[in-house]
């Protein structure tokens, strides 16, 4: 069940980010791409985890998804700091035409894309830790 929720979150992030870029035409900046790199495989890996071999539960799913989620969260937090101005733009690796600090979208007034990303990654990490605790203690 927990892994299923993780998969839902990863799928929502996948389709959500594709909606922003492909439908709304917001070009993803470099940091967005890094976050995408770590969330897209999760949508596949959780699905694989949901269909274990020999119909037992695949407990090792935590081993191969948690590292991706943690690295992704790192990029998301970094992006959020750039967004909110804690890290100056000049110190981060965006190309000149596409600024990572420029706020493209604010849902319901304050929800930005890096915030959604942080939320997705931390929710996945928390669920994975709960899952891990259940089986390894």
């Amino acid at each position, binding site marked *: 069940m927990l892994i*299923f929720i993780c*998969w*839902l979150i990863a*799928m*929502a992030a996948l*389709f959500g980010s*594709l*909606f922003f870029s*492909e*439908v*709304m035409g917001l070009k993803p900046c470099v940091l967005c791409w890094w976050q995408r790199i770590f969330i897209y495989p999760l949508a596949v890996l959780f*699905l694989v985890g*949901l*269909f274990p071999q020999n119909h037992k539960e695949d407990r090792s799913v935590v081993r191969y998804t948690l590292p991706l989620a943690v690295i992704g969260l790192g990029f998301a937090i970094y992006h959020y700091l750039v967004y909110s101005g804690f890290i100056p733009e000049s110190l981060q690796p965006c190309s000149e035409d596409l600024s990572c600090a420029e706020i493209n979208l604010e849902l319901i007034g304050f929800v930005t894309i890096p915030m959604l990303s942080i939320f997705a990654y931390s929710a996945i990490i928390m669920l994975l830790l709960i899952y891990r605790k259940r089986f390894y203690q």
Partner: protein
Amino acid sequence: MKKNIIIVATAILFVVLFIVAATLYNNKKDKALSSATLEKIEHVQRDYSPTMGPPDAKVTIVEFFDPACGTCSAFYPFVKQLMKDNPGKVNLVLRYLPLHQNSDVIVSIFEAARLQNRFRLTLERAYQTRDAWIEHHVSRPEKFWLQLDGLGLDMNKLNEDMQSAEIARRVKQDMLDAKQLNVNKTPGFFVNGKPLVHFGYQQLQQLVESEIAANY
């Protein structure tokens, strides 16, 4: 087994939701774009712009273009064909949106050539010789200059005219209008003031044909 069904159903749900949301969003955007243009109709056409085709045609295509833009060059024969296929009914107004570096200089050469009644020839020469004067998406006016032989241009006069403030003012006005109209890519088309929302040959043809049907 039940688990499999839930997972597959969820995956399908995601895809369906995405398609529905995308369709709704696009419809909303199309409507907003069309009505936004209606409010800003005075930005679509200016009387100083170069035109092609019959002046009394009831269907007018306005094209914002950049001479260094490959798609503009590819659309040019197509637009000409559209005018040919509907004789007397369609004309073309060309407006400048020089987005590539140095394209504003190329555009001022066009305008200066227009003063010598060589606008069309110069434009067509520019499209034909694109490879000779565009390097890595940057226009090289000095190289385009070398391509102008045989057009019957008075080169001294051309050189003088292209510096004129009036030409600079027109190009600036075109770019401001493009901004007002949300045209940020070239070519940007309007047919009788209606924006070409979905870009493509066929879409442009359909828009032109529907305007012909409405006006003739």
